[in-house]
């Protein structure tokens, strides 16, 4: 009996330790691949940087990426390559562009999803964004500057937020919008945090 109890205790403690280790993995282990992938994309960018200037903007070579997203409010170094696709596999590489939604600068809604706590947590701090903050989206043709128009917290089933006109799925779009989606609250899948913005300026390369 005593041996049985002791073995039970030992197994329980072991399970606890394994779960702790798993939490550590979610927070720090998952980010390794994301960082590696993002660095690959950025290396391309730096290679292209020396290849000339046009229109005052540095050239960018995006490779597989759809765009380069920078958010000055979240720091001078805040820069992520946005990849195409939002499957769990896609999102391991970095923020993902929703297939079928508008491309950067185009009329409609450019929707980007990113992890909040795992895989490098690119969208960890987008709750700090305020109305008027810049979301700078670089593509190979142009730099599009969006301005944040508002944030909302919605249920995971709320697909209207990614409609061409957010919240009005029946309306045709008349301007270029951006929408960022991530999970809310942190470490949860209960709700989604949504940031909307509207195109405020375009600079051609």
């Amino acid at each position, binding site marked *: 009996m005593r041996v049985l109890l*002791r*073995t039970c205790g*030992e*197994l329980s403690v072991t399970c606890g330790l*394994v779960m702790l*280790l*798993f939490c550590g*993995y*979610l927070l720090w*282990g*998952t980010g390794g691949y994301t960082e590696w992938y993002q660095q690959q994309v950025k290396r391309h960018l730096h290679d292209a940087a020396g290849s000339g200037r046009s229109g005052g903007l540095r050239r960018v070579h995006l490779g597989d990426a759809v765009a380069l997203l920078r958010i000055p409010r979240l720091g001078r170094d805040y820069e992520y390559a946005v990849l195409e696709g*939002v499957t*769990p596999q896609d*999102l391991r590489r970095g923020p993902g562009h*929703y297939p079928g939604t508008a491309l950067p600068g185009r009329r409609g809604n450019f929707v980007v*999803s*990113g*992890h*909040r*706590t*795992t*895989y490098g947590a690119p*969208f960890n701090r987008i709750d700090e964004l305020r109305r008027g903050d810049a979301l700078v989206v670089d593509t190979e043709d142009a730099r599009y500057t969006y301005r944040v128009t508002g944030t909302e917290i*919605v249920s*995971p*089933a*709320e*697909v209207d*937020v*990614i409609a061409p006109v957010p919240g009005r799925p029946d309306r045709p779009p008349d301007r270029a919008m951006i929408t960022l*989606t*991530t*999970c809310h609250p942190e*470490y*949860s*899948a209960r709700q*989604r945090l*949504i940031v909307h913005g509207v195109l405020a300026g375009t600079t051609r390369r």
Partner: protein
Amino acid sequence: MYGWIWRRLPGGPAARLLTALVLVALAGVVLWYLVFPMLEPHVPVDRVTVGT
């Protein structure tokens, strides 16, 4: 359980300690690089898309 394993380890206390540490590290590596990556997609901690 751990007592049973400890008694089965060969050598003196120092050698046993070393073997035990290696075994623990091995278990950690297997968990971190094999088990956790397989487990992670099924744990809903960071779902970021809508409508799926």
